[in-house]
């Protein structure tokens, strides 16, 4: 009978530890959540709960969009300028050549 009682009390102790375990880990997770997010990211990787939510910097994307558009426009204007300058150079060379050779 004593042996049975000893086994039962041991089993109860193990069960109590088992039940307390998750509580301990949950309280540890709460403690991590309360700390600095940057430190938390460096210390642990946790799965997202619910649908995946991600913050995308809309302001930065807008700046890149407008900035990129102006880079393209200015690049094209620069190209037009180069083409115009090349025309002028060719015209000058042609005039000089014709002036020296024409009767």
């Amino acid at each position, binding site marked *: 009978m004593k042996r049975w009682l000893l086994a039962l009390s041991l089993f109860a102790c193990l069960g109590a530890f088992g039940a307390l375990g998750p509580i301990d880990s949950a309280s540890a997770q709460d403690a991590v959540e309360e700390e600095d997010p940057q430190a938390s990211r460096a210390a642990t990787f946790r799965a997202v709960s619910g649908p995946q939510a991600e913050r995308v910097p809309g302001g930065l994307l807008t700046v890149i969009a407008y900035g990129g558009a102006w880079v393209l426009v200015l690049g094209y204007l620069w190209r037009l300028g180069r083409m115009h300058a090349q025309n002028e150079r060719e015209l000058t060379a*042609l005039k000089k050549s014709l002036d020296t050779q024409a009767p």
Partner: protein
Amino acid sequence: MALAPSSTPSTASRVSPLWHALAAITITLFLVSFYLVFEVAPVEEQMGLVQKIFYLHVPSAYGMYVGWTLSAVGGLLFLWKRSDRWDALSVAGAEVGTLFAAIVLLTGPLWGRKAWGVYWAWDPRITSTLLTAMIYGSFLALRSFGAAGQAEKRFAAALAIVGFPLLFLIKYSVQRWSGQHPVVLTGQGGGIHPDMVPALICFFLAVTGFAIWLLWTRIRIERHRQEILAIELEAARRGLGGES
């Protein structure tokens, strides 16, 4: 310059006051547009700041349609009349249309990153825009190999004409095959907030002025180049101007 064709390059290089006026008006319209977009138009409820890409993206798409349509018209008239002035229109239209298409294909994915979570989706409108850009890109590649002969000009004109029906595909693909692309401004969409309208209209006017100015400038440069080439050919035929 007895060798010169109908108008000499020196007269062609003279710039009209209207050209300067259009440049000034366009710059003013862009400045007003930026003020309206970033100061007056409200921030969209769900998209936030990234919705402001819309004011640049949609008028650029319109500039793309204008450029490529003029390229096709120029190509068609070149094949019919065989006049270099229509070839100049075709080249200018293809370049300006492709410039605006590049802006569309740059700004769209940046918006999509926020709206869809990805930069690129193989949506019917996006895919057809990319396909058309590749056709006009091949037009420009063909014409970038230096002085184009008649065969290159004809082939490029055919490319511009082939690309034109795809503009309708871009326009109606959303209605025909739905897809993810927004349809805010179409009959299926819910429209935009009234305070967003002035910014959009002003940007449309600015892009219109800019497209006309770019086309004008590019046509002038191309015509100038054609005239120089004509004089060089004539000089070579008469045994003059060997150095150039």
